[in-house]
C-alpha cells in the first residue's frame, strides 16, 4: 500500500498555514499569496470602525469572527472533541468597538497558534482529519480573499 511521509504532509500544512495567517517569509516569497498580505497583517491595518462597516450586507468583523469560529471548531475536530455545531453562531458578530476588535484579533491569533500546535503533534492523519486540515487552510484563504476585496470598498 502506497504511503506519504507524515512529516512532509505536516510541513506542507505548516508552510501554508503560516503564509495564510502570518504572510510568507519576505526573502522567499509566497506559494500562493503576494508578500505581506496574510490574515494578521491585513486585519492589523483595519480599525474597529472600518471592520464594522456594512459592506455587501456583511462586515469585515463578521468574516473575521466566522473564520476564527471555523478554525476553532475544526481544531476541536482534530482532537475528536467537537460536538454538534450550530454554524449560525459563527455569524453572530457584526460590529465591534475598539476593545472587541482587539480581542477578536487576539483570539484569532490564539486559535491559529493552537492549530499549528495540533498539526505539529498529530500522529494520526486519517481520511477525516486530512479533510479537516485542508478545510482550515482553504476556508481561511476564501475569507481572506473576501476581506481583502471588501477593504477595497472602504
Amino acid at each position: 500500500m502506497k504511503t506519504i511521509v507524515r512529516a512532509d504532509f505536516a510541513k506542507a500544512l505548516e508552510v501554508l498555514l503560516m503564509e495564510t495567517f502570518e504572510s510568507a517569509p519576505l526573502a522567499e516569497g509566497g506559494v500562493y499569496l503576494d508578500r505581506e498580505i496574510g490574515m494578521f497583517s491585513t486585519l492589523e491595518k483595519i480599525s474597529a470602525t472600518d471592520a464594522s462597516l456594512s459592506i455587501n450586507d456583511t462586515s469585515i468583523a463578521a468574516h473575521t469572527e466566522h473564520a476564527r469560529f471555523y478554525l476553532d471548531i475544526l481544531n476541536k475536530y482534530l482532537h475528536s472533541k467537537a460536538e454538534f455545531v450550530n454554524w449560525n453562531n459563527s455569524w453572530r458578530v457584526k460590529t465591534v468597538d475598539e476593545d472587541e476588535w482587539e480581542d477578536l484579533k487576539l483570539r484569532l491569533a490564539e486559535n491559529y497558534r493552537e492549530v499549528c500546535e495540533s498539526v505539529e503533534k498529530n500522529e494520526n492523519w486519517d481520511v477525516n482529519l486530512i479533510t479537516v486540515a485542508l478545510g482550515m487552510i482553504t476556508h481561511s484563504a476564501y475569507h481572506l480573499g473576501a476581506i481583502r476585496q471588501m477593504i477595497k470598498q472602504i
Partner: protein
Amino acid sequence: MENNNTRILREDFLKDVLIILRETFEGSPPGQGSAYLDRGIGVLNTLEDLSAEQVSANFNETTIAAHSEHLKFYLDRLCEFIEGREESVNWEQSWLIETVNPQEWETLRAGVKKSYENILRCIAGVEVWNQNNIGEIIAIIAHTAYHLGAIRQMIKAFGEED
C-alpha cells in the same frame, strides 16, 4: 523499522484532495454536506451565471475577468511545477486580461474548466508525494479559494449598485 505513525495512506490524502478540489470548482455534491463552502457554491457555477459585461465591469481597479484569468494561469503554472518545471514564472502575465467580449468570456470560462480538469490529470500522474508537491496541490486549492472569495464579494457589490 519505520513506525506506521510516520506514514499517511496515499489514497486517504488523494481522496481528500479531490473532495476539496471538487468542492472548490464544482461545489459540494447535491444532497451532501460541504467541507468549507456554502452548499453548491464553486468557481465554475459562480462564473457560469455571469455575463461578459458583468465580468468586465471595473471594480476597484480590477475585474472578475481578470481574477478568472489569473486563477487559470496559476492552475496551469502550478501543474507545470508539479510535473517538474524549474524555470521561474513572470506572474505579471497572469493579469494581462481586464475585459472580455462574450466570445472571449466563453473561451475564458472553458479555459478555467479545462485547467481544472488538467489538474486532475496532473494529480493522477504523480508517483511520489513529497513536501513540495503536497504544498503545491494545497496551494492550488487555497489560491483558487482566495480568488473565489474575492469574486463572490465583487458579485455582491454589483448587486448593491443595481
